[in-house]
């Protein structure tokens, strides 16, 4: 009968606090006595150990059990911490770096879409098919990269808000651009206002969200790189403590038994020393490789990405000044800000100078040098665009700004700048991947190796002490 009374408890449909047990004194009293018995167990064990430690064989058994336990715990912790580090590096390679790259792709594609839509808008008649397809590709890339970035926003809470903004605003943005395009095709100047509204949405809402997403994912990448190069304190302390205990045990045995060496304990000591040396060597190599993956790879990529985005936004400003047709002073001011970020106020500093300082050799340095030259050409062409537009030669200014085949124009110089920065970013990502992958390789077999060495040490301790124990029988 009692069973029917309690049956609804476990089969209740909704989760909730478990039903309180019926107010029944007997049950609790019984539980208390069982619990007390359980609490008493360690005390009994300690008393038993102290009793047995009074005799030499008992003392040896206690030492053996203690050493074996320490060997196994130290081995387990060391193995787990190496395995965890291995997993972190794999996570950085397979997960975090692609996500940071996806966030970067969202940011870059959207900035490029903004600049390309404005360029296409300035073209007379039908917009050039290459600009149209570039815009389409930007939007498609941004959408695909956004889906990738969104897949991660569940475990990085900070990423959820910008992903939400991006997902909600991107369709509105493309709608506005298409409205602008349709009006422009009909010859209606209101198309320019739609394009400017689209650009305002992009700059005031979408790009800041993309920037947040990029920042969150980049910080997360750096965090995981740092955690993959941190010092494994707990494992080291345990292994060193085990080594000290082993040596102490051997000294004690030598004094008590007058035997210089105990083969089992020597084997165990050797195993621990090998673990320490192997672990230290592997971690130093791995740490420096992952660190150089961060310095030569992801850190450089970050500087280059920021340079590229400053360039893309300046390009959008350049074209939007012309789209605004005489009312573009604010865009021109923004151009100045973005250009200063890219090359510094004097043309010698900014993010490009920072990149030159970081990347001093190899293919990357050549690409950054290309980008610097292209930026100089572009700013020169921009001056020409502005002087033409300001003197009322609007059509000439548009031609200088958007025609791809005009050698001294803005468009080809900007294209070279963008391509060089993209190439330098690719070099940086490759270096990151190579270094981090090599770092990962340094840890190969270390985790199972440490486990095996711990078992060998434990076995050595057991055999060594058993040999001594036998002498007492």
């Amino acid at each position: 009968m009692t069973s029917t009374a309690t049956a609804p408890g476990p089969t209740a449909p909704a989760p909730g606090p478990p039903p309180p047990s019926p107010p029944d004194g007997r049950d609790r009293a019984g539980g208390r006595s069982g619990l007390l018995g359980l609490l008493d167990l360690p005390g009994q064990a300690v008393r038993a150990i102290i009793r047995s430690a009074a005799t030499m064989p008992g003392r040896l058994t206690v030492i053996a059990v203690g050493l074996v336990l320490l060997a196994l715990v130290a081995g387990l912790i060391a193995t787990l911490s190496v395995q965890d580090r291995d997993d972190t590096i794999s996570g950085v390679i397979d997960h975090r770096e692609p996500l940071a790259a996806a966030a970067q792709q969202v940011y870059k594609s959207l900035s490029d879409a903004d600049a390309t839509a404005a360029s296409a808008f300035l073209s007379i008649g039908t917009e050039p098919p290459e600009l149209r397809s570039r815009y389409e590709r930007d939007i498609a890339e941004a959408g695909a990269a956004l889906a990738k970035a969104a897949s991660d926003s569940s475990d990085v809470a900070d990423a959820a808000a910008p992903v939400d903004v991006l997902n909600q605003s991107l369709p509105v943005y493309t709608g506005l651009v298409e409205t602008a395009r349709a009006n422009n095709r009909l010859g209606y100047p209101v198309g320019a206002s739609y394009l400017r509204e689209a650009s305002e949405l992009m700059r005031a809402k979408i790009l800041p969200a993309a920037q947040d997403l990029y920042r969150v994912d980049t910080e997360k990448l750096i965090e995981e790189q740092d955690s993959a190069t941190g010092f494994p304190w707990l494992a080291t302390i345990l292994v060193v403590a085990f080594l000290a205990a082993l040596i102490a045990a051997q000294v004690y045995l030598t004094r008590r038994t007058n035997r210089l060496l105990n083969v089992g304990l020597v084997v165990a000591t050797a195993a621990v020393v090998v673990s320490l040396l192997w672990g230290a060597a592997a971690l130093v190599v791995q740490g420096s490789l992952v660190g150089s993956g961060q310095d030569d790879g992801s850190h450089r990529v970050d500087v280059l990405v920021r340079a590229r985005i400053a360039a893309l936004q300046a390009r959008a400003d350049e074209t939007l000044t012309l789209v605004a047709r005489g009312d573009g002073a604010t865009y021109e001011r923004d151009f100045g800000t973005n250009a200063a970020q890219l090359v510094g106020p004097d043309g010698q500093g900014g993010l490009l100078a920072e990149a030159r300082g970081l990347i001093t050799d190899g293919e990357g340095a050549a690409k950054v040098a290309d980008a610097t030259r292209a930026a100089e050409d572009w700013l020169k062409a921009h001056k020409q665009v502005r002087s033409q537009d300001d003197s009322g030669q609007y059509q000439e200014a548009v031609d200088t700004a958007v025609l791809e085949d005009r050698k001294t124009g803005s468009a080809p110089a900007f294209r070279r700048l963008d391509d060089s920065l993209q190439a330098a970013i690719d070099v940086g990502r490759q270096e990151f991947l190579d270094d981090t992958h090599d770092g990962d390789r340094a840890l190969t077999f270390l985790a199972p190796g440490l486990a095996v060495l711990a078992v060998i040490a434990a076995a050595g301790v057991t055999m060594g002490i058993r040999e001594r124990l036998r002498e007492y029988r």
Partner: protein
Amino acid sequence: MSRRGNTVRAGVLAVVALLAASCGSPGKPVDPAPVSNAAWPQPAHVGGPDATAGGGADTSCNPLASLPPNGTIGSDSTMAKIKERGKLIAGVDQTTYLFGFRNPTTGNLEGFDIDMVNAIARALFGTSEGRVQFRAISSSQREDVLKDHQVDVVVRTYSITCSRKKDVDFSSVYYQAGQQILVAKESKTEKLSDLSGKRVCAAKKSTSLAKIATDPAKPVPISVDNWSDCLVMLQQGQVAAVSTDDTILAGMAAQDPTLKVVGGQFTQENYGIGVPKDNEDMVRYVNAVLEEIRGTGVWQDSYRKWVEPSLGAASPPSPQYR
């Protein structure tokens, strides 16, 4: 046995009651992705009324009285210098549909104001083809380019006012505009007072914005950077109406067949051609050209082409001279 049965029953009831209390109702299904705000995006720098709104009734002069026309070109005159240069430099608008705008399919500037510039060039050179250098300027640049002699004329929906006449000279009136209202075709709005409490759009620093802000019916003024931003907001339903010079409204109505211009002109704006202050011979010459195009039907042809479809028939305003 029966007592035990009662105890059990009571226990069952207690447990059920406890369960019911602790679980509560299952609640509503969770909204997986709540959206707080799906409003339209706005053009850049949308604001309310603007303290710097221009205009103001300065009645210290008769703004419409210009210099009497004179079509002869003296040897040392401004016109002779322009002819020598080979090009007339004109400050124009390229954003106002129907008056001065860049046709996106051809890249050329077109509109009623552009026709006026071309008429002056034709009078000077015999043809306007290749004889005009258009300089796109914003409305705030109009006085400056004239004062600095960067252009010969400004033809850019330029209202003649006494305060402006202190800095620049004007030709006779070539177009009479007035503030009206642009609304959706199905709207019952007929005058500004019908828009009480509704959002009405105008460009920053415009006299139209001041007019909306001071109207006793208290429409809600919304200010934007560019006139065509107002059309965007009207099309997106963010404002109920746009109110400004009918010239600008005509251009908007021409871009959207679902809109209409209503209200009748409740202000009067007299457009003149701006000329640098010290070029009096140029003012007289431009007045002579305007006399000619009023008489020969050039004005009427241009009006019919650009403005009549949206605002109905009109005849050229009659000039006044000092």
